[in-house]
């Protein structure tokens, strides 16, 4: 439910980090773990709303990648995917050692290639 402020923060961060080439950004990819409480549809809708406010962002694609939850099993000493929030390894051992799934991060930025 805080997607608008998240999207604003993403673009403010990019403007601060790339002041000279912010206007050459063509794509921003965000990775959101399934435990990050982020709804990708709300991120997309928030971005479309932000474009109406700041039309210069219309040439940028925002992509949200959902990351599955990965936990570590102490018994098998292996990682396993947590499906539908069942934190139980295939061997039957429950685990709360989360390896992946809580992230919310800018994972990739693409820029217009330099003119020849």
């Amino acid at each position, binding site marked *: 439910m805080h997607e608008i402020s998240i999207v604003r923060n993403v673009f403010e961060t990019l403007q601060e980090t790339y002041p000279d080439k912010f206007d050459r950004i063509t794509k921003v990819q965000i990775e959101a773990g*399934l435990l990050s409480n982020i*709804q990708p549809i709300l991120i997309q809708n928030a971005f479309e709303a932000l474009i109406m406010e700041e039309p210069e962002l219309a040439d940028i694609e925002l992509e949200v990648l959902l990351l599955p939850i990965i936990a570590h099993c102490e018994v098998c000493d292996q990682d396993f995917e947590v499906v539908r929030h069942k934190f139980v390894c295939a061997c039957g051992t429950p685990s709360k050692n989360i390896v992946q799934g809580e992230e919310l991060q800018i994972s990739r930025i693409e820029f217009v290639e330099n003119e020849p």
Partner: protein
Amino acid sequence: MTVPFAVQTEPIVVTQALENLHGLGNRTIDFFVIEWYEASKSRMKKKTRGGIDVLVEKAHRSALEDGDLLYLSEERAILLKIKPCDCVVLRPQSLQEVGTLCFEIGNKHVPIFITHENEVCVAYDAPLYQLLLSGGFRAEIEERVLHPSQMIKAYGNKSLK
């Protein structure tokens, strides 16, 4: 001169879905595959399953629909495919139950889809699923395609006009 797709560097630009008036004939069918939550995006660039770059650049915000024809040439047709996803499916027995359900789900700001079979569908979300179960609703998890045309809007639902 027709540039073979294998060496084409510029993406095919799609501004809207095309009308499929005469069928696809013997054309090669290719698919531009998206997640359900990408159907309303005004801009997205991806490769089709066949490896062709496609840039969707819509001037309007209306959503693309599963099966939409995006591109048509003499040899090839590119169709939109929305990936199925885990959904929480509910089959309410009365209008009052529909209202209660939509109120509970709507409070999460999550889009609600109502199918032609009057099922209520939302993309699977563990806390929401648990909330519905604890509220006594009979919710099941099924893999479905969420069609944008079945999404309830806060205003402008054609069926309510």
